[in-house]
């Protein structure tokens, strides 16, 4: 995954370069915003999971322009709105960037994202897509993911395991020793 940061860096640089353009464009097109060339849509907008659980969702990337698009990059972002929660996206998903080689005008493709809920907290996930050139960045709507609190220590259950297993062995041991005693 050595290339991933490099790619992210490239992406960030691209975004930075686009910023003034965006402002300029925004000012210029105040009356009529340019139709985005690419659209991204998620198949769900809210989900819940327990810590350690895996969830999976899909994004549909559609080429809304008249031209065939090549070299599209889709990226999954994971952030939290709670400043006390630390999120390291790398822990959450091993594959957060996917590539779309070619998309004909009007065509769409579906990308699947796998995420493992590592920490609890309110999270926002979204997928953004851009092309190779300094084109606009299209973002999906947010997926609000609520990861439940730390697993309630089901103390009954864990105690059942950690007590009953040795207890079972102890009982067997006792039975053996009693049996042996009879031979004295």
């Amino acid at each position, binding site marked *: 995954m050595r290339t991933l940061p490099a790619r992210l860096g490239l992406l960030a640089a691209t975004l930075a370069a686009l910023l003034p353009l965006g402002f300029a464009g925004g000012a210029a097109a105040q009356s009529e915003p340019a139709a985005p060339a690419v659209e991204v849509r998620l198949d769900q907008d809210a989900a819940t999971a*327990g810590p*350690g*659980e*895996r969830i999976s969702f899909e994004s549909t990337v559609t080429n809304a322009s008249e031209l065939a698009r090549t070299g599209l990059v889709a990226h999954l972002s994971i952030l939290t709105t709670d400043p006390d929660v630390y999120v390291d996206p790398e*822990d959450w998903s091993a594959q957060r960037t996917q590539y779309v080689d070619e998309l004909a005008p009007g065509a769409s493709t579906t990308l699947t994202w796998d995420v493992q809920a*590592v920490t609890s907290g309110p999270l926002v996930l979204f997928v953004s897509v851009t092309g190779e050139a300094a084109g606009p960045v299209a973002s999906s709507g947010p997926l609000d993911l609520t990861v439940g609190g*730390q*697993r309630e*220590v089901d*103390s009954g*259950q*864990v*105690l059942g*395991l*950690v*007590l009953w*297993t*040795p207890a079972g*062995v*102890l009982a*067997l*041991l006792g039975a*053996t*020793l009693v*049996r*042996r005693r009879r031979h004295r």
Partner: protein
Amino acid sequence: MSEATRTRPATTAAAESPWLVMAEQELRDLWLSGRGLAVMLAHTTLLSITTYLIATNQELNFLEQREAVALTVQVTVAVGGLLVVLVAADAVSGERERGTLETLLLTPVPRRSLLIGKGVAAMSLWFGAFLLALPYLWWIGRDVGTFGSAAAGTFLAGTLLALFLTGVGLLVTTFSQSNGLSLALSFFLLLGLYAPHQLPAEASRGWAGETLLKLDPFTSALLYLERLVINAHTLTQDLPLLVVPALAAAGILTLALALAGRLSLLPRSG
């Protein structure tokens, strides 16, 4: 010339395999005496403590579940290996010291069969340790779906290591001057083989370091388990890593059984 004839109990024809007879008795001695169960109690207590800490302690809980499963697997392999090597290392030198070796050598049973029977008993401790680890593996790994592969992989890699350690113990015990020496030597061999795996990652950098580590059956087997459990590899993905443990086990067992004929009442001379 005396030509007396006498009757004797039906022997020889379709007799039981001596190694089986030996193994049966050794297993009875180990498990019905309570010794085997006592160490299993210690094993489950250790697993219970780690599992309880994993489940209740926030810090440990942050340990990813897969890492918690891997920890349990490592504890099981280490405990099982320790028990196997200690019992195997007692096999001959222990009997010699307790004065019970001579009566065994007086039977027409090949020395090799004696060793095999004792090796089977030693291996049973590994199987016991493995079986008792299963509920823990299931409980810790139930959310991440690792139970099946973790259990199967632990069985595979752990059994290879246990076979290897059985060979080590039998070889050492056959030629040791005393039982204490045999136990100590086997124990330190185990530590020596286990240590490289615990080295910081930097030490394993470089071609030489990596090759050396991979020649240690422990390091390879534990690496296999790590990739299986933590990196969610499939059972077959890293099979090449098990080649070294398998070859080591086969080699040392062959050597121990080949040298079984040299087993004698006195450790050095015949």
